[in-house]
């Protein structure tokens, strides 16, 4: 299975770039989940 090297814009060491990917993925996944759940709250707007 092909693996890869991470090299970031600021020439960060691999570990830092990996943490950057993890942080990005975590934040975006939480945002997506929050949007999904908040959609159901729209029902509160119905009179």
């Amino acid at each position: 299975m092909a693996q890869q090297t991470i090299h970031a814009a600021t020439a960060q060491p691999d570990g830092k770039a990996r943490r950057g990917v993890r942080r990005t993925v975590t934040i975006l996944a939480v945002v997506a989940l929050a949007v999904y759940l908040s959609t159901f709250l729209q029902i509160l707007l119905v009179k």
Partner: protein
Amino acid sequence: MSYAATHDQHDDHHGAPKGFFQRWCMSTNHKDIGTLYLIFSLTMLFIGGSFAMLIRAELFKPGMQLMQPYFFNEMTAMHALVMIFGAIMPAFVGLGNWMIPLMVGAPDMALPRMNNLSFWILPFAFLMLLSTLFLPGGGPAGGWTMYPPLSLQSGSLAYAVFAIHLMGISSIMGAINIIATILNMRAPGMDLMKMPVFVWSWLITAFLLIAVMPALAGAVTMLLTDKYFGTNFFNPGGGGDPVLYQHIFWFFGHPEVYIMILPAFGIISEIVPTFARKPIFGYKAMVFAIACIAFLSFIVWAHHMFAVGLPLGAEIFFMYATMLISVPTGVKVFNWVATMWGGSMTFETPMLFAIAFIILFTIGGFSGLMMALVPADFQYHDTYFIVAHFHYVLVSGALFAIIGAAYYWMPKWTGNMYSEFWGKVHFWNSVIWVNVLFFPQHFLGLAGMPRRIPDYNVAFANFNMISSIGGFLFGATQLIFVGVLIHCAFFSKKKATDRVWEGAKGLEWTIPSPAPHHTFEVPPVVNDDELAHGHVND
């Protein structure tokens, strides 16, 4: 095994895996997955196109000709679902997969295995969606918008909803992957404001996807619970509101329109400078215009709902907000024209498609501006004028950009040049027949022909016949495209150079043609003179 490893830790990176299953089903390579996306989207283009042919055959003349009304309704709904979620969006994801790592100097996507999963969800989602056509309850027949209570009558709603959930999961994972790649894996020196416009367009599109796909998932989940679990989200009898569904759907649906056009803007911003042999005019303005369009897309959704009876204040707000979008869009169109102005232009097939995009997308944009006007929209609503508008934007807009991108990058992918003669035959036939197909639909709409009906007044007969002839010929023309692709990939004797096009600039043109299985394992040096948009800060 960690998703990332240092260069020295692996020894299997010099070629593609042997064996069909390993190469294509287990692939974590961005180029292979990009190819899979593109083949999938081409397949779906023809499936969705065959539905369109059936629709145009039924509408060839007044009266019921070939099918029952319910089947016609299934065809209109499935045509849209297949084309939007199966053809246009996966094509952009495929292009993004192929080109974003090459353009930013990354060795692959940030999350290669998730990339594989994102793709392989799609064929199963569409198999499930298409299988509903053969189920006793029939497929979705309430339009791609699936408004309740009409959509709740479909016997296969659960299948359609599950298929949409899968597509949404695939899109969200793909978007997360693209953002993580662009933010974390650019080559040293590839600052954000040095990235190609295509990469910028995809970065912004990916944020749009993450913000709105979950809203669609929520809306269709509520449909599901209303039908099968006794909830009343959209049932007035139980205290719900069907208009609520429309608000949630279009909160997704309008940004979705931009999800299908922003990457096209990025593609045109790559092609035009190459064949004008000039840096893109106003790089920063182009980037900010994309961001501005993306922001505005969140505050215009109710312009799809003027006819439901919104408060006057809301109608005025959404009207003006919608009209505002023409400003950043105009910036983009003028900048493309300014890029061409004074350039040493040549007219290879990608450039022809790009120029056709600029002209025909602008026509679609203008008709969109017309229907932004609340009083006028009451006349246009649910007529063929709307059908004409969004097909100008999505066919001669998004699809033409995708086809242009395929011609533009195909030599880099395959290592072979395509047949310029047949490319031009494909272009001229496409551009003529797409106008024969969709331009008369403006007249039909203005004369009052409603959309989504299998029969119509004889007064509409002539324009419908012209439109159908254009449709059949436009569909047949796309077979030429398939022929050009197959010839280029397998039979072309003319080898592509590394740079391919004389005016091409950017990291993707510094690698050999065809692109090796693994690229940029050692970070490339970003030379500002070699950026497609020149020195941004000058």
